Each structure stands twice: as C-alpha cells, then as structure tokens.
C-alpha cells in the first residue's frame, strides 16, 4: 500500500500506474487479464459475481486502497495520516496522537471493506480520506516540499478522475489503464518530492522509533526515495501522514514520540475474515470446474461436491499452479496441498459415498494405477477410458461397461459416485490388505502410569472413575450397535502390569512383567477384550487400579517398553490399534529408551538451540517405526511437573499419526474436566487405522514432500498407523515439467485404511487445479491461511535441523520474495516506494509476524522447552483452521451487544489498543483461552459471574467457570462452550485481571503488539518487510 508516496523516481510514470491501487490498474497490466480475454473475463466475472469486485483484483493485491492515496493527495492537509495507509498495503503512517485514531479507524475500516468492492469503495474511501483531511494540512510537511508535492501529485490523479474511474472502470473494462494512468501521473510529480529522501528516511525512523532496529536499516540500504515512499505511501490516505511526518522531522523532538503508523490502517485479519464471511458466507460452494478458490476457513459455507474434493478435505496454497518451474521458483509461492482426508463434515454435507466395486476391486488406470474418477474420460463408446493423470488408455472392464450419451458422458454417471463426485470410497478387496487377509477390528490400549507422581496428581483416580463411561463411546461405524473396537489395559511404573480381562473371570488378573529390557506381552486371549462381554471385569479393574497403587512409592518410570509391549500385543492379535498413554515424567527407569534431562536453557537463542528440539537419539524414531509397521498409533496424555523431553518421546505420537495432550502441573480439581473432555474427544472421534496415503498427480508436477504426523519409508507412500478426523497432512508439489495450461493440473489423493469395524476401504479425493502462465492469475488464486499452515509446518519440521534464527530468516525472505515478485510482475507500474500486497495475501505480513513471534518458532525464554516442543508437535497436525486461529488468536469483547449469527461477539484485532478498562475479553487460540477482566468492569457482572465482590476477589485458579443462574453467567458460559465446541482440544481457561501478574502472559498473545524478547509489532514488521521487498526490487 505504500504506493501513495512512493514515487520511485526511477520508475517513470509508466510503472507507476500498475500499482495503484488497485488491482484494477494492475489488471490491465497483467497480461493475464487482458490476453486471454476469455479467462480473465471469466475470472473477473466470477469475482464480480461474488460481489467483491475487488477481489478479482486481489491478485494485485493492493488494493484499491490506493485510491486513498489519491485522496491523500488531495488532502494534503490531512494530518491524520494514519487512516490513510491502511489499505492493504502497508503503510507506514505516522500516526499522530491517539486522538487521531478514531478517524483513522474509520477510514481504515472502510478501506478494507471497500477494497473488495472495488468500484464502490472508492467513494467511501474518499470520504474517509476526507475525514482525515480535516486535520490541518501538512504543515509540518510543508517543510519537506517534496513530500507535499508528492501528495499533491497523487491527488491530482485521484481527486479527479482516478478514483472513480479506476474503481469502476476497472471492472467493466480493463479500467486499469485509466486508473493506472492516474497513477502514473502521480509518480511524476512525486519524483521530485522524493528527492528529499533524507527526510523520508527520517520519517521512517520516527515511525519506528520504537523499533529502532527497523529504522536503522532503512537509511542504510534503501534509497532515500524508497523510504520516503513508504511513509508517503501511508499518507495517501491520510495524506496527512506524510504531512505529519515532515513536521516531526523538522521538529524532531516533539513530534517524534507521537508519531507512528496507525495499526488500524494496516490490513486487518478481522476485517478480511468478516468480509469473506459477509460475501461468501451464504454461498453454496460447488466444486465444479477447476481452480476454484474456496471461501476462507473462517467462513461458514456449504459445499456441494460436483466432482472435485471439498475444501474441507483439500485446500491449496494456490489453486492456479504456475505452468513452469521457473515461474514457480521466481515467485516462490509454494504449490502445496493441505489434506485432511478424514475431515468431519458439518451437518448437511454428506460423507463420501461408499462404493463396493465387487471382487474385482476398484477400476484403475493400467499405467499409473490411478483410481476411476470423474475426470477420467471415456472414449470409443465407453469401451476405453483415458486417465487424467498419465493419459494412458485402459480398456473398460466388461462388467463396468456402460454406454455414453451424446456428451460423451456415461449414462450411469450419476449412479456411480466415482464418476460424479470429488470424494468417495471404495470397499477394498483382499489385495489391499496386509498379508492378503481381511483385517480384524482395531484395538484401543490404555496404558496408565501408576507411579507416585501419577497417583498424587489424581489423574489416575479420575481417569479410572470416568473411563468406563467414556468407553461407551468407542468409535463405531454408522450402522453398528456396538463398537467392535477391542480394549486392553496396562499400568506401569518401572515395570509393566498387564490385565487379563477375559469375560469368564470373576475378577481381573494382573500380570506383572518386570523384564523391561526385553519386554513381552504375557497373554494373548484376555488382554484385548470386547467391551460388552468383559464389562464387569473392566469395571472391577478400574475400581481396583487406584486402590492397588494408592500407596505406591515408585517414582521411576519406563516408557519405551510399554510401547514395545503394545506393539507386540497388536501384532499377536493381528489388528491395528491405538495406544492411549497416560504418563507423568521423564522415563529414567533402567530400560530401553531411558532419557536424561537435557533441558539446557542456555542454548536458547544459540545455534545449538535446535538440539533441544531434536530427539536425544534415534531410538524413539525406530520405536515409532515399529509402531507404524504394526499400525499402532500412540496418543500421549502427559502430566508433567518437570522436563519430560517431548522432543524425544513426542516422536512416538508424531510419527504414528498420534497426538499429544499435555497438562502441566495437573490438578484433578482444576484440570480434570479438561482432561476428561479431551480424552472423550480422542476416544470418540472418527478414526481409521493402518492407512496408506498416496497422492497422484497429473504429469508435470509430482508430490515431493509430506509434512504432518506421519511416517514414510519411501518417497511416495505416507504410512499412517492411524489418522483421525482432526489430522491434516501437507503435501508439497514440485514441477517435473511444464504443465499445459489448457489441461490444468489434477491431484488424486487415495487413502487406504481399515475402518473401526475392521473393513478395509479406500477413500479418494480428487481435485482439479488450474494452471497459469501469468503471475497475476497465480497471485489471484492464493490462499494465505493454507500458505501459513504450510510455512508453520515446514518450519517446525526443520526446527530440529536448522537453527531457529535461520528458519526465521528463511521465512521472511520467502515471504519477501513472494511479495516482491508480485510487485515486479504484477504490480510493477507502481512506485517501488509503495508497499503493494496482493489481495489474497494482504494478511501475509501480519500472519508471518505472528508465526515468527510464536513460541514454537521464536527463541523464547518465557516458555519451557517442553512447551515449545509440544507446540511444534501440535502445529504438525494442525489443519488450516487451527493454524489460522493459533497464530492469530481471537480476541472477543464480551460486554457488547454485537454478535455474529452464532451469538459470539465480533472479534477485534489482537492488540492492546483494543483493551478497555470496562470491558471483558475472551482470547482464544485453540490451545488456550483467557478471560481478561478490565479494572473498571461493572461489579455486578463480576458478582453475577464469579460470585465475588470485585475483580480482586476472583479466584483465578478456577479451572472452569462457576455456574450461576443469571444472564451474565449463562451468557459467558455459552460463549465459552460455543468457542470450545469447534476445537479439537479443550482449551485451558485462564482468568486474567487487568494489571495482574498474569497480564504479561496474556499480552503475549496480543500478536499485533510488540512482543517480549524484541518481537516486532505488526507495524514494525510491515515496515521491515517493505524494506526487504524494496531491497529485492532494487
């Protein structure tokens, strides 16, 4: 967005034009649009259709916002620069004193909203801008004539024709040109202004004043002009901005402190989410055609499977693949798919239909073995079909033959899900089974730590009390009355205790295995039992366990032997399984896999930091492989009071498709409920076992990297001991060759698995992607949330091999390149001094900053090594929704009447600026939840909710909310439970009082602010990125 000011001297006018705001202008430029009229127009229309004209442009990103600049131009006067910039681009505005906020605010908001609208917005913008202008003109500015000039330059364009034209024109016609023209002009004038680069620079500094670091670099690196560009860019809107700056300049001292960019002027996730919700929330997303960009993950929408997989199963970083690897390398936009093959669908969307192809098995391409899908085309009257992946032609088996209609579509197309759906399942034949034998139903093994710590923390007692009822909800297939999942129990400390639960027994038999160095399963029948038949024995056991160990003094624990035992158990039972391990401390018992405390906090922030997150040896990796070989997935429920080396033991669950739950300093009274709910969710959720996932792609690209909770023994097959409905996997594609634009690209993801009833099935997801040769098209079809998901996973994956600093550097540079290439190839006409972001990626900077400052990636001393390792593991299995929320938490003001349809308050930006004394906020990131209570909150509310007189008297150790029969209490609990309902794990609720000792921790999650340890605020970061981009461009 910087555009405003930036008047890169160099670029001549021509360049200038692109950018503008808008996308419009760009559009024209972008050949893509123009050239293939068909395509572009189509796309354009689509967008239009959607309502957000602007969207179409997004490609360009920038956003119409530019308009503002014009305005700004017009309003030289405006002092309140802040409001201006905003747009999508980053604009360093200098914000005047707080007072100005309001105006800026509004301006901003409008911008955003307008942006999408394209044409319309302009007006609003303008209006906004004007508002700003109200302020005194840039007097300060005045000093630096150039600046002012620049502003002026803009204005012209804007003020007059540009705004209107650009916006509206864009659509109808490649309005671009006009708009651009307008822009161009501006540059011209600006250039001169630029000259006083110094000033610009200085301005920057001022802005950044807080973050000195940023300020410093600019001067050195960039041409002064650029700098100035930035600042001005800002101004556009707030024309004032620039104006302001100058003033500060002149009067350095006084002005400096007050100035800064207005965060509200920068692209806001809240706004983007809200806009998308408004615009696309009601549509039915039909997966027809190729390369469709679905609504954001935060938007509720309905999907109709029309032959391509629902975005609930597959989302991509870009739905329009670059045609050549050169193109891909240049822009550095990854081609990556986030696949959540077992995703649970909302009500109203039918799960994939199951097809029984009979004894012959599913129809497959004879060459590449792709499965029959809607994209296969039948020829020769239906006697042959052509594979969409490899183009090989295969004879249609006799019993699969059907005639074609006049459209060359099979007559029975709509009777066969594999011919008309994007996602469907085949019942597998024996050929698809282990040892050519149909599998047995899987088993759940519960392994309970009964060491001193475990007993003392109370979870054993709690677990044993609750487990019996939780077992009623073992996963079962739709038509089953009872689950066929078998259950088994082990307890352990320094030795293992197995239990014979044979239904013929009156009481359980405990079998102790002390030989932990060479562990074995002491029984076969009776260990894994049918819940229904052995119910009485199991209940007796669960009563006995806490009793038996209540006086234990054993503190040594083993870990690996237990897993080995479970592996053997499922092996001898010839079934797949899932191990639920409830574990308290570092396994120091004399046994394989013994660990020692290697938590050396001195390493944090050094090159050796990565060793903290690398496993201590490859022992656990090998063990995990054994688990995968036997299809045993391991979920860890950890209750540590100290270091437990998650980096090592966590591999067990990470590689086996499992999950870690962690309850630090567990106390049954506080954390018990959360733990039991997590466990309940874990037990009940849909899960499949012994799975192999394979992604097949059409020629030109191939999958090269798979990231997630998975294990691979070769380069193509993802082996998953189990995968549940919450797990997602990232697959990165790479070019093999040039892809033909007209054919598009096609990906078929096949998941072969054993269901909870022991049925062997194949689930297929097919997705059609477009291919483009124009960058503009590419940038138009990106999805930032998926991209962030990818970046997060990739960073975590590399986290134990590469120094943290390097990872962060790489992230930043990749993002910079992406944005810079956009500037170069799509929005080149704009002035380099402007920060122009593609519409689809306008949140990239804010999200990236959130990622960089996230505890998982950031070298933080505030959080234990284990917690960081834990977060990393979490991230690896997170899907796009979860990463979105995790990196940019939701901050909800509770005491206000505006709520969305669900009755949940509208979120505000994660910044302390939004906090108000008299307000109560909920902040949630999917992992934790905070309830922040302002000092001036109405005591009645506190009384109603906490039964306390004042905030000071609230018991903040409460693990959950008290229940009172009044609206406030009900309302709060309702909101909390609604928020919780959508999460895969229970969030720990922390109550924070304003200015209380916990508040710094809470503020840690206000990701737009400057964080502890030098983490940049959004504003600073945006400046920094801008600088990076300009460096790249220059």
């Amino acid at each position, binding site marked *: 967005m910087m555009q405003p000011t930036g008047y890169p001297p160099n670029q001549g006018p021509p360049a200038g034009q692109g950018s503008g705001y808008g996308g419009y202008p760009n559009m024209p430029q972008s050949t893509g649009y123009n050239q293939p009229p068909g395509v572009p127009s189509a796309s354009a229309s689509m967008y239009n259709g959607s309502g957000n004209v602007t969207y179409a442009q997004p490609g360009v990103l920038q956003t119409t916002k530019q308009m503002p600049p014009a305005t700004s131009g017009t309003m030289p006067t405006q002092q309140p620069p802040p409001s201006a910039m905003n747009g999508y681009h980053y604009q360093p505005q200098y914000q005047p004193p707080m007072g100005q906020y309001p105006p800026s605010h509004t301006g901003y908001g409008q911008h955003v909203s307008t942006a999408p609208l394209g044409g319309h917005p302009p007006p609003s913008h303008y209006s906004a801008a004007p508002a700003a202008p109200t302020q005194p003109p840039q007097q300060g500015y005045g000093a630096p004539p150039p600046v002012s000039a620049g502003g002026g330059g803009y204005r012209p364009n804007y003020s007059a024709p540009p705004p209107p034209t650009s916006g509206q024109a864009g659509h109808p016609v490649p309005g671009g040109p006009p708009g651009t023209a307008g822009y161009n002009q501006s540059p011209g004038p600006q250039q001169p202004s630029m000259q006083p680069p110094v000033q610009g620079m200085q301005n920057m500094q001022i802005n950044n004043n807080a973050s000195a670091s940023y300020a410093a670099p600019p001067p050195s690196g960039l041409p002064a002009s650029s700098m100035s560009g930035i600042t001005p860019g800002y101004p556009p809107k707030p024309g004032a901005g620039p104006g302001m700056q100058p003033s500060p300049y002149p009067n350095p001292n006084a002005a400096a402190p007050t100035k800064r960019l207005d965060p509200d002027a920068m692209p806001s996730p809240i706004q983007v989410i809200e806009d998308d919700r408004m615009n696309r929330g009601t549509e039915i997303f039909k997966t027809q055609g190729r390369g469709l960009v679905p609504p954001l993950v935060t938007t509720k929408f309905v999907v109709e499977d029309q032959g391509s997989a629902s975005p609930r199963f597959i989302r991509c970083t870009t739905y329009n693949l670059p045609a050549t690897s050169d193109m891909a390398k240049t822009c550095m936009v990854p081609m990556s798919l986030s696949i959540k093959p077992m995703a649970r669908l909302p009500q109203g969307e039918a799960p994939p239909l199951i097809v029984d192809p009979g004894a012959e098995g599913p129809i497959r391409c004879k060459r590449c073995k792709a499965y029959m899908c809607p994209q296969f085309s039948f020829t020769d009257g239906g006697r042959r079909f052509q594979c969409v992946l490899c183009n090989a032609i295969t004879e249609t088996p006799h019993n699969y033959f059907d005639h074609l209609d006049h459209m060359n579509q099979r007559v029975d197309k709509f009777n066969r899900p594999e011919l008309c759906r994007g996602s469907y399942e085949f019942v597998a034949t024996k050929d698809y089974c282990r040892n050519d034998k149909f599998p047995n139903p899987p088993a759940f093994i519960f392994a309970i730590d009964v060491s001193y710590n475990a007993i003392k923390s109370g979870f054993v007692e709690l677990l044993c009390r609750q487990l019996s009822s939780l077992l009623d909800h073992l996963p079962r297939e739709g038509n089953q009355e009872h689950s066929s999942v078998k259950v088994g129990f082990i307890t352990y400390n320094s030795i293992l205790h197995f239990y014979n639960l044979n239904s*013929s027994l009156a*009481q359980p038999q405990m079998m102790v295995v002390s030989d932990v160095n060479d562990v074995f399963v002491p029984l076969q029948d009776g260990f894994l039992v049918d819940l229904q038949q052995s119910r009485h024995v199991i209940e007796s056991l669960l009563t006995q366990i806490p009793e038996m160990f209540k006086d234990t003094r054993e503190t040594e624990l083993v870990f690996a032997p237990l897993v080995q035992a479970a592996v053997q158990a499922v092996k001898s039972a010839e079934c797949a399984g899932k191990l639920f391990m409830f574990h308290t401390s570092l396994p120091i018992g004399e046994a394989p896999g013994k660990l020692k405390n290697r938590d050396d906090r001195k390493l944090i922030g050094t090159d050796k930091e990565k060793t903290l997150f690398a496993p201590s040896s490859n022992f656990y990796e090998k063990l995990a492989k054994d688990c995968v070989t036997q299809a045993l997935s391991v979920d860890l429920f950890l209750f540590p009071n100290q270091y437990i080396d998650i980096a090592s033991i966590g591999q067990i669950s990470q590689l086996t498709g499992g999950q870690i739950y962690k309850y630090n300093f567990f106390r049954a009274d506080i954390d018990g409920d959360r733990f039991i709910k997590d466990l309940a969710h874990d037990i009940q959720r849909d899960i499949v076992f012994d799975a192999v996932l394979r992604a097949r792609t059409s020629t030109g690209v191939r999958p090269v990297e798979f990231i997630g909770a998975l294990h691979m023994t070769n380069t193509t097959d993802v082996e998953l001991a189990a995968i549940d409905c919450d797990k997602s996997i990232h697959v990165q594609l790479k070019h093999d060759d040039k892809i033909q634009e007209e054919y598009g690209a096609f990906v078929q993801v096949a998941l072969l698995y054993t269901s909870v009833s022991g049925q062997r099935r194949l689930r297929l997801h097919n997705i059609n992607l477009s291919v483009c040769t124009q960058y503009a098209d590419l940038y138009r079809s990106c999805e930032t949330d998926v991209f962030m998901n990818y970046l997060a996973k990739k960073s975590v994956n590399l986290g134990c091999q590469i120094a943290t600093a390097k990872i962060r550097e790489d992230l930043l540079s990749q993002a910079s390149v992406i944005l810079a290439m956009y500037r170069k190839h799509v929005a080149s006409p704009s002035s380099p001094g402007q920060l122009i972001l593609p519409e689809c990626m306008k949140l990239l900077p804010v999200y990236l900053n959130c990622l960089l400052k996230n505890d998982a990636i950031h070298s933080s001393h505030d959080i234990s090594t284990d917690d960081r390792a834990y977060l990393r593991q979490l991230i690896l299995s997170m899907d796009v929704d979860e990463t979105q929320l995790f990196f940019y938490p939701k901050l909800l003001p509770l005491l206000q009447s505006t709520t969305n349809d669900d009755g949940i308050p509208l979120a505000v930006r994660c910044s302390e600026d939004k906090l108000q004394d008299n307000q109560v906020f909920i902040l949630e990131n999917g992992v934790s939840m905070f309830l922040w209570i302002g000092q001036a909150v109405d005591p009645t509310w506190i009384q109603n909710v906490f039964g306390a007189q004042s905030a000071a008297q609230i018991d903040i150790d409460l693990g959950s909310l008290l229940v009172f029969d009044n609206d406030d209490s009900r309302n709060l609990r309702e909101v909390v439970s609604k928020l919780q309902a959508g999460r895969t794990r229970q969030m720990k609720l922390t109550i924070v009082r304003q200015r209380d000792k916990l508040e710094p921790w809470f503020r840690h999650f206000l990701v737009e602010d400057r964080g502890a340890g030098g983490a940049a605020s959004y504003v600073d970061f945006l400046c920094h990125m801008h600088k990076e981009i300009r460096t790249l461009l220059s």
Partner: protein
Amino acid sequence: MATYQEYILQNEERDGIRFSWNVWPSSRLEATRMVVPLSCLFTPLKERVDLPPIQYEPITCTRPTCRAILNPLCQVDYRSKIWNCNFCYQRNPFPASYAAISETHQPAELIPQFTTLEYQMHGPAPVGPVFLFVLDTCMEEEDLQAMKESLQMSLSLLPNNALIGLITYGRMVQVHELGTEGITKSYVFRGTKDLAAKQIQEMLGLNKLPNTPQNQPGQPQAAPQNLPANRFLQPLHKCDMFVTDLLGELQRDPWPVSQGKRAVRSVGAALSIAVGLLECTFPNVASRVMLFMGGPCTQGPGMIIDESLEHTIRSWYDIEKDNNKYTKKAVKHYEALATRAANTGHVIDIFACALDQTGLHEMRCCTTMTGGLMVMGDSFNTSLFKQTFQKVFSKDSKGEFNMAFNAVMEIKTSREVKVNGIIGPCVSMNAKNASVSENEIGIGGTTQWKASGVDPSTAFAVYLEVVNQHNAPIPQGGRGTVQFITRYIHSSGQRRIRVTTVARNWADPSTGLAHITAGFDQEAAAVLMARLAIYRSQNDDGPDILRWLDRMLIRLCQKFGDFQKDASETFRFMENFSLYPQFMFHLRRSSFLQVFGHSPDETAYYRYQFDKQDLTNSLIMIQPVLYSYSFNGPPEPVLLDSASIQADKILLLDSFFQVLIYHGETIDQWKKAGYHDKPEYENFRQLLQAPVDDAQDILATRFPIPRYIETQHGGSQARFLLHKVNPSQTHNNTMWGGQPDGSAPVLTDDVSLQVFMDHLKKLAVSSST
C-alpha cells in the same frame, strides 16, 4: 544273638543299617579280595517309634578334627567323668551338666540300646516348610482339573505353619502374588529366558527394603518378618482360601497350539525362577519346589525337544549316538539348577504325567541331587498320581510328616576304615578329612553329604574301605566303628540331629575267613552291588557294566564257593550266598541295566527310585515277588519263573513299580463265563477277590503308588509279567500250545536262570581264570 540273620535284622531294626559284611576283614588287601566291597545301606531317618525325645545338644569330642558325638560305644570313666572318643581316642571331660552320671544313672546316649539317638534342638521359632508349587498349564482340561483338585486337596494336608507359593507356566511363567484383594496378580516372565537369581529378585521387587511394601494391598501387617517375599510365599492359614480360588480360576495356557505342534512349555525357565525365588528369600529354610509337568519343556533353557511334532523326542538310541541337540544343554541347565537348590537346601520334586516322555532323563539330577521326589504317570487324572501325591503328605505314627529337610549327613570312622563315597540322592559337601579315601565310589571325596530332602525310607549306600595294612594287627577286641551324624530340619521346622553309631568285629581273613563268610549279607550285598552297577552305568562304563557284574559274580563264586576245579557239578555255595547269583541274574535282566524297550525317561525314573529306596523295596525291584492263588490252598510265594504261570492259578506280581494280577487261562474263562456272579461259586469269587485285596494292601503302603494292572492269559498287559519271569520255558524249548500243566512259554531269546547258573558254575570252577 542266635543267627546272623537275626543279628542283621535286629541291627536293621535298630539302626537302619545293613552291611554287606558284618565281620570285617582286618587288612586292606584282604578286603579288596572280598569282591563285594565293605559297604552298607543306611537309612538315616528310619522311622523309630521308640526313640526318646532328647531335648539337649549332643556332646561332641573336643578334638577339633574329630567332633564325634558321645555314644554308647564309648568308654566312660564315671568317676573322673571322662569319656574316650572311640574314633580319635581323645579323652573328653563331661560338661558340668553331666556331673550326676554314674553306671546306674546314665544319660540316654550312653545306654547301649540307643546306638541310634535323636537330639532335638531348641532354636528360634522355626519358619515352617515352604511349598512352592510350579504348575504346568499346558494340558488337557481333564488333566488340569485333576491336578488342580489334587492341589486344592493337598492344602488341607499341609502343615499348618507351611508357607505356600504358586508359579504357573506355559509359554510364559507366572509367579502369583498371594492374598491380593479384588484382583489376582502375578509376575510374568518369558519362558525363553534364563535369569540369574539376582535378576529374578529384582524383577519380583524382592530387593526392596522390607519396610517399603510395594503395591500390595492386603499385605498383612504382622507377618513374622514382613519380607517382600511374603507376597509370593504366604502362610497357609492366611491364604488357603485365596489359593483355592486361584487354583479354581486357573485356565489352560491361553496361547494357541497349532496343528502339528507341541504346546510351548517353559519348564526350564519356570524351575529356574522357582529356584531363584527360594534362593533369595528362604535360603536354608525347609523348602520344596513341587514341579508338575504334563509334557516336555519345549522352549528356552532346559528345552528337551522343539515345538514341532515332526521331531520326536530323543530315544536311548539318540542319546547313545549323541545325535540330538538338546539333551546335553538341558542336562547342563538342570544340573546347574539342582546344584543351586542343593546349596541352599531346597528340594525339587517332579511330578511328570504324560503319555510321552517329559524329559525326566535330563531332569533327574534335580531330584537326585536334592533328594526330591520323582513321580511318573500317564496322566494327572489317574489314581496313581492322585494317591501318590496325597501320600507325599502322609504322616507317620506320631502324626509327623514323612519328610525332613536340608539334611547333612556326616560319617565318622575309626582309624582302620575310610569312606569311599555314597550312592544315593545327595550332594557332596566337600568336607575332607582323614576319613576320606582316595578311591571314590559314588559321591566321594568328602565325609559330609547334603540331602535337601529326606524321608524315613531314604537309604544311602555307603562304601567303605579298610585301610589297615596287612601287617598292622588290629588290637584285640577292637572293633571297626562308624558313626553317622545326620543334622536335619524336621517337618515341624525344628532342627534335629540323629546319631547312629555302629561297630563290627574284625577278623583276619587268613585265620577267620569262615567268620567273615558267615557275616555276609547277600541281600544287602545284592542291593549295594546293584547301586554300584547302576551308578557306574550312568557315569562311566555304561555298556560294559554287565560284563563287570558277571566278572564280580564269578570272582565271588570263586572266592567263596566250595568246588573242585573244573568240575562245575561240585560247586556249592553257603546258604547265605545262595540267593546272590539269582539276584544278579534278575538284576542283569532288569530295566535298571537293560535300556532296551524303555524310554530314557522310564529308565531315569526306575533308577531314581532304586537309588533311594530301602533294602526291601530294592530287592523287590531287582527280583519281583510272585504269589500264586489257587483252590489248592492258601496263597503261596512261587518262583519268579514262567513255570509258575498256570492255567488254574491267579498270580500276583509285585515289581515295586507295578502290581499285577494275572488270571491263568482257565480262571479267565471261568471269569468270562461269569461264574463268580453265581452264588454257588462263591468260592471262585473269593479266589478272585483274594489277590485284589492283597494288592490293595500293597498299594496302600507303597510310595509311590505302583501301577495296578489286572490282566489274564494272553492279555496285552501280561507282558509286564512275562518279561520279569525267568524264561525257563520259551518257544525254543517248548512246544507251541503250551505245557500240559497250563504254564505259558515266554517268547524270548534271553537265557533262563538255569542256563545262567550252569555257565556261572562252569566259569567259577574253571581253572583258566
């Protein structure tokens, strides 16, 4: 003392001892010419109802190298209150407590009839005997059920103060914790792994301090010593209900046995764990490991045969040819275990019931070295096993259990005599002193032996050597003296010492050969020679043993027979030698030395029994007794000869291992015709019943219970009779169709006793040898 016969019997009655020679040749040279070595069969704990309970410690010779115990054969000076040790001639003062003694006021140990005396020690409250049951679970349901019932029944027979423990095994080995509530708990071990005692201890959590009880609900407070081991070994009165229930719930080994496979059975590992458990918890406390097995060990240490049924279990042929890979390793394993058990004074009993072999051949050392019991049967579901097992816990006339533990037997000899060694169920304690002969016979090189388990019928064969030189005269009236001191733990847990002191006269063979000859005890000699022969056949010269026996017999005949050279018809033997050749004839044919037709397990079992039974039983084993029942008169013992098999007679054969009733051809026909059911043939019914009653008497007293067989002429089981009898009539010397008198010919190529004797005489009188 009328005859030697009476003298011998009286001595046996009193001291439980039978010497081969009751008058001893006075020089080493002469002694070696006696052919049958100077030796005795000694039953250390022979049941004596008349012994007074002596409640004090015995008085020992003060010479540190002697320490013999005061006995009636000592010379006592009542005035100076001094006694002379009759072994080292040390003069010892009586302790102060004996101040009151006089010729008329003697302590028991000086009263002549108490050459055998038992002292009962006082000590801390003893820990009751420990019974650790080690149960096989790989067997048929009925067998398992029978075994469980037998065990449950046995709980009521055990001493009240007994501690019991339970280990079960199949593919895995489970050590059961006793007395847990609400849940049964066991420690499981892999059957393929041999663990050192220390590892076992750690894995069972026994290395923890006693006062940190581990996860043991219901573990009582005030056990005598609150040892962790109490979790596994608990007093019977505390846990008998629990154990009964536990046994009731005991299931067959849950691991499936596939077609063509043997059950996987970890006998070796289970036994190792049992031994290890006791070793570290109750060393030197009276303890029995009672191992029940329904088949051979098929995995892990001590494995006898592998799982596959394609491989048959080793036969004698395989063992002789050394072509099976498991036997040697298994023997080594079990020997190591037996040694450990013996060292800590624990007994291993083996109850093996299976139709096929179970590995007794390899495991025999476990019983022979610890003095344990070995019982071999076809199934746990037979009366043979059930009654035998019940008898393990039988009580004597005083109501005391017929078992004693951790016995250490020490032998003291007067100077003219040294000890070669012992053959019997015991191990050497390696206590060397001047009485130890350089020539070892049996277990030698020591004067102390340990038998972890002894019962009142256990008899040891003790081989002595006269070392007096030919030219060193024996003092006039001097007697050779031997003292047996047996320290043991009574079944009540009390420590006791049994002292037996015996003396025999010397005779100079050159002048008094007649005395020596007269003192020959042919029964004892036969048994002692048999033990020696069996021992040798197992240890050194297996196949040559028959030749050795023959040579010894011929030499005996030459030495003591009365004949003219080269005139076999003139050969005569004294009456007290007359049966000896016959014993040897039957011994040669017995299953102790003839392995043909027997599995290694059977042989091991037979030999085991022979090595520990007393004289009477041993003789029965060598030469079974045969009674004949007919209308002609009362039952009479008849020759063990095929000629005794008559059509109109019923025979009762007692070979110790079998009690067999054989109906002659006619009797059988009558029976089949049902005459015994007719009132008018009441006498026939009685005739049929008589041997059955007698057999029941035998069965009732014998341990282990013999196999009881009823058969008839031509019956398949008659083979047991036919192969024992002297084949005086065979198909070679008889017409087909049988003798007119109805006796049955035996189909064999073995020589008959007659032929044997003829040859013997011929060789004995031959001047060429």
